[in-house]
């Protein structure tokens, strides 16, 4: 690996690990004052220590003092200082500063050294440290220390361990051992020294301090100690003595590192998943060789045909498993998003003077990384809403005979082929009357519209709807539930809201496991084939004309057992040429308990389809979730069942949302 590539991969790993470490710090710090066990403190100490060390090694010196200051606080805690709420809040702020400094460096922007310095001062105040530490050791320098033992050093019993130990006490050190000069066994003189070292040390120690250590070995080794300019990247040169100060070469290296960093982002994958993948590939190879054997001379008799069928069946199973395994590579646990909430809940609760407990369950539920990333903002919004509007002030709760502390529950689980995420609070619930009044006042519904509570709650999803009496900076920022719903629907998901006055509100997000592949039911509409996501289909029925009727002159319904199911003419909805004659088959789809019948000409095969985005290839079309290419090369549209059901449930609402 050339030095630039090595540096780039070092940087990438450093950022990845550091952001993970910061997340660990963040979720741990929230519990610091209430639950500061030794294990927690040790874990947090390790997290910040690695960031400090890594930053030194990759040459991001400006975050060193701050990381060091934070580390010192944990060190104090280890030695018995009591953690306070003020301390954990201060450390959380410092973690924020650290994160933005690292994010800036990752994005190639200069960091604000000033912000870091202020944060250092603040952190030091937390433990009452004299600010002199900061003043006395402001300059962290990256040193290159070359150690080349002379050939006879081994016989002179050179011991480098104490030297390396002592040097690493000055600061994080990266030890590069140069072994290329060590000959093969046959040519080796085992008592002659061939090894060399180049240490990179990030420290505030002075040259004199370093010299005093390396002096221990200068009778047996050639040693050089030289500073590397702050911005210059360590570039271990194997054979030549360590580089002299190279100030002018400085800024180039970090920029190269950035350019070499892949822009698509990376993902950590557990070994289990890789192993599963390797297993699948193994099975595929077996199937392939089985099929390969059949491809020989000789008649294609019944026995051979049966074997081919068997092989193809096996191939289909393998492909399916392989696909599942590959999809799992992209999946991450919801916990990575949920973990941000303890802090949010705590801080907002404090600001609003509300006591709030957060319960998280199902955090190990996995879903596609792309879905997860886009889920974060809507979730933050919903949790903020719950804290701001849902949970009542403590006095109100006590007056209502409820527990003083409100509870917010975050839950995730796999349900069917979807992932369901629930955000529930035990607050005051939605006020249907007020929602209706607001909607009327804003002209969102007609003055004489009569809505039951459930229908009234759905009004909060309308664009521009907000009942907050005054706009707070927490949740009432002009964006509201309509934006949340749009985000969720863009992910191919659905959002439902349920509320009981005085008992609380529950919002349920239903999200697809992955955006890439779905199980589809092919149906025919005249000349066209259309894919209906299999998960939403409950049944298909052959129409009996006697059971159909028309309500209110516009809506056709079908009496399915004891229920009236609205019927939608898919061809008309999709603007496809109308087929002659009455359509005969109704595919019943269900979304959140609401059934809708879709009229089609024929139900064809079920198959997995790869979803191609319409937005990316054409533009968004209401009612369509995407398109796919079938085995015969034909393009088929994939229905957006949620939108269709909503159209049937409340035509005016979908029209308003689409506007």
């Amino acid at each position, binding site marked *: 690996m050339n030095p630039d590539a090595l540096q780039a991969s070092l940087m990438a790993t450093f950022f990845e690990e550091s952001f993970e470490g910061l997340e660990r710090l963040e979720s741990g710090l929230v519990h610091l004052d209430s639950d500061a066990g030794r294990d927690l403190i040790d874990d947090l100490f390790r997290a910040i220590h690695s960031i400090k060390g890594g930053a030194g090694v990759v040459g991001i010196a400006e975050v060193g003092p701050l990381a060091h200051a934070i580390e010192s606080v944990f060190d104090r805690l280890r030695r018995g200082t009591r953690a306070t709420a003020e301390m954990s809040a201060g450390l959380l702020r410092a973690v924020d500063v650290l994160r933005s400094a690292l994010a800036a460096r990752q994005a190639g922007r200069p960091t604000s050294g000033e912000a870091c310095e202020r944060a250092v001062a603040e952190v030091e105040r937390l433990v009452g440290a004299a600010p002199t530490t900061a003043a006395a050791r402001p300059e962290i320098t990256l040193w290159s220390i070359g150690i080349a*033992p002379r050939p006879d*050093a*081994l*016989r002179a*019993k*050179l*011991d*480098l*361990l104490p030297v*390396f*130990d002592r040097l690493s006490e000055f600061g994080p050190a990266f*030890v*590069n*051992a140069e*072994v290329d000069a*060590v*000959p*093969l*066994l*046959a040519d*080796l003189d*085992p*008592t002659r*020294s*061939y*090894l060399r*070292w180049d240490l990179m040390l990030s420290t505030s120690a002075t040259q004199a301090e370093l010299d005093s250590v390396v002096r221990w070995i200068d009778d047996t080794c050639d040693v050089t100690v030289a500073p590397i300019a702050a911005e210059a990247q360590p570039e271990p040169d194997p054979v030549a003595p360590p580089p002299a100060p190279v100030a002018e070469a400085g800024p180039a290296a970090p920029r190269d590192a950035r350019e070499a960093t892949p822009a698509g982002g990376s993902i950590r994958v557990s070994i289990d998943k890789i192993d599963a993948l390797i297993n699948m590939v193994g099975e595929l190879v077996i199937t392939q060789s089985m099929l390969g054997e059949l491809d020989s001379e000789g008649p294609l008799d019944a026995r051979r045909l049966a074997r081919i069928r068997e092989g193809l069946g096996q191939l289909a199973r393998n492909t399916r498993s392989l696909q599942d395994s590959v999809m799992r590579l992209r999946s991450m646990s919801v916990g990575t998003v949920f973990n941000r909430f303890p802090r949010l809940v705590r801080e907002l609760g404090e600001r609003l003077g509300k006591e709030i407990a957060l319960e998280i369950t199902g955090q190990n539920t996995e879903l596609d990384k792309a879905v997860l990333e886009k889920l974060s903002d809507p979730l933050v919004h919903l949790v903020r809403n719950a804290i701001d509007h849902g949970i009542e002030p403590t006095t109100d709760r006590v007056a209502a005979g409820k527990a003083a502390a409100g509870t917010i529950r975050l839950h995730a689980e796999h349900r069917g082929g979807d992932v369901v995420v629930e955000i529930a609070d035990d607050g005051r619930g939605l006020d249907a009357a007020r929602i209706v009044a607001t909607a009327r006042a804003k002209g969102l519904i007609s003055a004489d519209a009569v809505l039951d509570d459930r229908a009234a709650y759905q009004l909060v999803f309308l664009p521009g709807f907000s009942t907050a009496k005054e706009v707070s900076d927490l949740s009432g920022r002009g964006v509201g539930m309509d934006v949340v719903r749009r985000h969720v629907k863009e992910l191919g998901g659905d959002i439902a809201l349920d509320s009981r006055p005085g008992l609380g509100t529950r919002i349920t997000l239903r999200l697809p496991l992955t955006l890439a592949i779905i199980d589809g039911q092919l149906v025919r509409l005249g000349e066209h084939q259309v894919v209906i996501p299999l998960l939403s289909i409950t049944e298909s029925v052959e129409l009996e004309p006697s059971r159909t009727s028309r309500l209110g002159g516009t809506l056709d319904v079908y009496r399915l057992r004891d229920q009236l199911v609205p019927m939608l003419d898919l061809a008309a909805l999709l603007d496809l040429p109308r087929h002659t004659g009455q359509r005969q088959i109704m595919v019943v789809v269900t979304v959140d308990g609401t059934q809708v019948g879709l009229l089609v000409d024929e139900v064809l095969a079920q198959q997995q389809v790869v979803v191609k985005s319409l937005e990316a290839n054409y533009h968004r079309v209401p009612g369509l979730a995407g398109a796919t290419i079938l085995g015969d090369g034909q393009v088929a549209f994939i229905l957006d069942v949620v939108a269709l059901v909503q159209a049937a449930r409340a035509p005016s609402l979908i029209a308003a949302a689409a506007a």
Partner: protein
Amino acid sequence: MDPIEPDAVRLPATLDVETVAAAHAALTARADAALVVDLGAVEQVDLAGLQLLCALVRTAAHHQRPLAWRGASRALHVAANTLGLGHVLGLPEAP
């Protein structure tokens, strides 16, 4: 720990500049085939010892012959890692 394999080369408790020549001879004699080296006993190691292990790794890699370590004491790990040789040697997990 793995049972001691009969064909493994077992290195002594002290692998230093005094004993390294003997170990070198033992390893050189066996280095033309796949090799299992038992480090379980090695408690004391110096630069000469570590350098010998480096040479062994390089030799196996050069001739593309399999090399497997058995056992490695905490002390050996600490020495190798402190001197930046941990990834070169690829020692098994410490007991």
